[in-house]
């Protein structure tokens, strides 16, 4: 293909590195997301271990106060924005087209663009450690402590990093929302979509609608810090509470963005290994939608102690507790899925069952501080830290691990070792409970969060030590996963197309799937298409000889545009000239992108 005016030739080389850099294949992008996010997860985990080491004993002096504050801020930012969200992205990148029976996503290059922007945004955020200190005012960056008067350049990295990551997530969310609506296989109606797809779909809309609110808040913060406005600064007439509202209008939907993909994974794993269809499919789907909607009406429960007012407290406590109802419906349906089953306990199933139990614990403590008077005694104590880790580690992270064990054979063609897997699970499970259950006690004993040290004699010594030990056991569990991956990587692919006898469409193709996903896009007749084929003795149809499957060619432009976005963001951090440089790079990239032939 001749070069279009003023653009580079489409990549043709087969070099490994370039083929990954220019790839637009959703499976490869999913893998990129997964590996990158897992590395960030290890970074976030090491940050957590440092925190726990410092807090192991009273008056610890492993790290100083300033560093501690950077650590817990970066720990949360890394885990939320660079680990759990992109791990979800890894799954939905890899799985959505396979599960709905499509050859790729609706906009393959946009998909690559999302990944590269995510990578650059993540690097910006993490690089703050070397450039004058990381953000240090907590992941929700309350004002005015995050204003230029009270905090250093770390918060600029926070603003820019989150903005860049926001662009990435928005692009991905648009892409996948369209893909799910528009690229379903024949017969794949909305009410036949796997629950994982449904949850992803809801998450996409939460992202699309919540991110702009965060972006606006960040823009205002940027103006406060870099220019002369005072949106949030009281002495200039601004209002620090406005930041809290804007942040949590985003922030609460965000926590459902983190948990819903995990709920989706579990809704796939439980029926597969119970060998029966999901109990109450429709109820689970509608409960998911209800959670998505209600999630918009509860944000002020993070602000019960800011002087909200009685009626506001009453309203927000009711809406918050109400979320327990659809969530409860899900929990009960998951349990009922196990009921009457013939449960095969693989590692994936262990993680899924543990998810149900641990998430419930976290949910219950959530409902406890949904009562404003109770929250007055729990807000900003370790009780909250316990809540968030039960839902985020026991919930989101366990969901991710369940998904990893479940889909690993599909993605690599290799089964993970089950013995190592059981070690992995039990260490993580025990470690997780040892680390986070005592935090309830600490909270009840009045231990505040975000303190870099504490005196002995307050009754906090013992449980802090237990928590630290638990954290290290948890880390050991993660280590077993890494070992498992390395060990099984040596083996020959042995998984077969459908090692679990699972019902959904991704198992109807080979493991790992061919570049074009399906030779022939199958026709879907039920919610469990593969079981349907099994029970009706159907086989996947052979491709007609001579048909040519059209696949989008690789492209340089995603990474070029992402680089432009990076320059744009680096401007406010170093020299505005970089921003000026970024604009032409982006324009050049878009120009080449639109002219590049995609056929």
């Amino acid at each position, binding site marked *: 293909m001749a070069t279009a005016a003023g653009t580079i030739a489409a990549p043709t080389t087969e070099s490994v590195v370039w083929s990954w850099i220019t790839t637009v294949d959703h499976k490869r992008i999913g893998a990129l997301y997964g590996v990158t996010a897992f590395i960030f997860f290890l970074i976030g985990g090491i940050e957590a271990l440092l925190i726990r080491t410092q807090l192991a004993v009273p008056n610890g002096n492993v790290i100083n106060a300033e560093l501690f504050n950077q650590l817990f801020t970066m720990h949360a930012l890394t885990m939320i924005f660079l680990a759990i969200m992109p791990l979800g992205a890894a799954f939905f990148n890899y799985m959505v087209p396979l599960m709905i029976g499509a050859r790729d996503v609706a906009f393959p290059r946009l998909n690559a663009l999302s990944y590269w922007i995510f990578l650059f945004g993540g690097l910006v955020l993490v690089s703050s450690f070397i450039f004058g200190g990381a953000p240090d005012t907590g992941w929700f960056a309350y004002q005015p402590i995050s204003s230029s008067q009270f905090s250093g350049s770390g918060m600029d990295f926070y603003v820019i990093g989150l903005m860049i990551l926001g662009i990435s997530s928005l692009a991905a969310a648009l892409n996948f929302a369209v893909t799910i609506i528009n690229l379903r296989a024949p017969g794949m109606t909305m009410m036949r979509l796997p629950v994982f797809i449904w949850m992803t779909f809801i998450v996409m809309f939460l992202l699309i609608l919540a991110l702009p609110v965060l972006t606006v808040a960040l823009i205002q913060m940027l103006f406060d810090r870099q220019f002369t406005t005072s949106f949030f600064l009281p002495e200039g007439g601004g209002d620090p509470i406005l930041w809290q509202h804007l942040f949590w209008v985003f922030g609460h939907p965000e926590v459902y963005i983190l948990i819903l993909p995990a709920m989706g994974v579990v809704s796939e794993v439980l029926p597969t290994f119970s060998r029966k269809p999901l109990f109450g499919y429709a109820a689970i789907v509608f409960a998911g939608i209800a959670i998505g909607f209600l999630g918009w009406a509860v944000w002020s429960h993070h602000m019960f102690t800011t002087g909200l007012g009685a009626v506001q407290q009453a309203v927000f406590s009711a809406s918050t507790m109400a979320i327990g109802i659809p969530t409860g*419906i899900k929990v*009960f349906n998951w349990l009922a899925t196990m009921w009457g089953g013939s449960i095969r306990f693989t590692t994936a199933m262990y993680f899924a069952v543990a998810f149900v139990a641990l998430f419930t614990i976290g949910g219950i403590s959530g409902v406890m501080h949904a009562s404003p*008077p109770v929250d007055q*005694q729990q807000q900003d104590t370790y009780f909250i830290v316990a809540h968030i880790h039960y839902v985020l580690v026991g919930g989101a992270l366990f969901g991710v691990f369940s998904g990893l064990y479940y889909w690993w054979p599909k993605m690599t063609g290799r089964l993970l070792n089950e013995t190592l897997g059981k070690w992995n699970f039990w260490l993580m499970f025990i470690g997780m409970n040892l680390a986070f259950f005592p935090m309830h006690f600490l*909270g009840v004993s009045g231990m505040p969060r975000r*303190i870099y040290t504490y005196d002995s004699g307050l*009754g906090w010594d013992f449980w802090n030590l237990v928590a630290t030990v638990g954290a290290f056991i948890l880390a050991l569990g993660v280590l077993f996963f890494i070992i498992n991956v390395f060990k099984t990587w040596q083996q020959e692919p042995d998984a077969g197309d459908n090692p679990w006898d699972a019902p959904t469409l991704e198992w109807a193709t080979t493991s790992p799937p061919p570049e074009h996903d399906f030779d022939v896009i199958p026709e879907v007749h039920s919610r469990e298409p593969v079981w349907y084929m099994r029970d009706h003795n159907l086989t996947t149809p052979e491709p007609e000889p001579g048909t040519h499957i059209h696949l989008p060619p690789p492209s340089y432009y995603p990474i070029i545009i992402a680089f432009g976005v990076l320059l744009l963001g680096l401007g406010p951090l170093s020299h505005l000239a970089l921003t000026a440089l970024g604009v032409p790079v982006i324009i050049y990239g878009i120009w080449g992108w639109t002219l590049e032939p995609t056929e």
Partner: protein
Amino acid sequence: MTEEALLRISQRWARRLLILAPAALFILLTACSDPQTTIEPASDMTEAIQGVYEIVFWLSMFVFIAIMLLTLWLAVHYREQPGREAIQIHGHQRLEILWTIIPVAIVLIMLVPTWQVIADTTDTPPEDSMVITATGKQWWFEFTYEGLGLPDDEGNPTDLVTANELHLQAGKPVHVLLRADDVIHSFWIPQLAGKVDMVPGHENDLWFTPFEDSVREEAYLGQCVEFCGASHANMRFRVFVHDEEGFNAWLENERSDAVEPTSELGKLGATLFVVRCAECHTVRGTAASIADFGPDLTHVGSRTTIAAGILDNNISNLVDWISNPAEIKPGINPENDVIDKERPLRFMRAFEDEISAEDIQAIAQYLTELK
């Protein structure tokens, strides 16, 4: 293994868990004896909170135990076994309705007392309250008792300013107005008052009445629990609840001017103090009584702790503090003062290079004599 065997195992486990649950509860209850416990109320406000907490707690416990047992039982009972076929069902309407109704009921039972307490605690403060303004600053608390100072020359009541230690009278309602100078802090005395934030530019308040029987020698602990910078961990305060007599005695002393130092060393310290420290601190009744950047030190010698509840009040700690406060509270960094010239933060600086060790000793002696 047969089904019965498994059933037996699961039942045994279920029983064990039932024993474990009270054990967990026991552990939770031991939190009571901890000095900063949130579940041993000593005022009307915290008792009202405790009332809701207990309802919420037991309901949560019920859900917790039920779900844990159910999960465990299902996992054990429906384990794959030779000859077992999974039942192919898709749902069960009546069951689904049932487990929608139960959570609705639980939520309603939680909401009613919640709303009740919200209404009670946000009503209006009692007429006869003692009014105290608590101001959060990086990283200490200033307390201003409205109208309790000595009357001025014209006989008008003045306010009484003190820091980091709050003295209350059992049975006497207090209305606390919450302010912040720099960033957001919060006011929390787990046993006496639920947390409310101190937000710059906003006027929050809370009120409570310490129980008649809450009088005790040792202090109730209070703490800032809203992240406020490097030394957020070091921003504490203490609350003493007296009977009427004790309170009046404290008040009598606190409102009067500073006592004259008696020792030679103390007298030397007094003169040094006026030169070195008066730019920030006030000691009423001396030449050092204009500045109000730092805590009022008029009766600092009568406090049990210094530096916002972090150090015991004794000479050696005072010396350490004056020599280099940043050593004790990270983030106390005079360099931060120059970020915005118009609104200096006025962190206390280190004096070890400015004042000789002997002189610091003298100042410390003086401060301990300010009973």
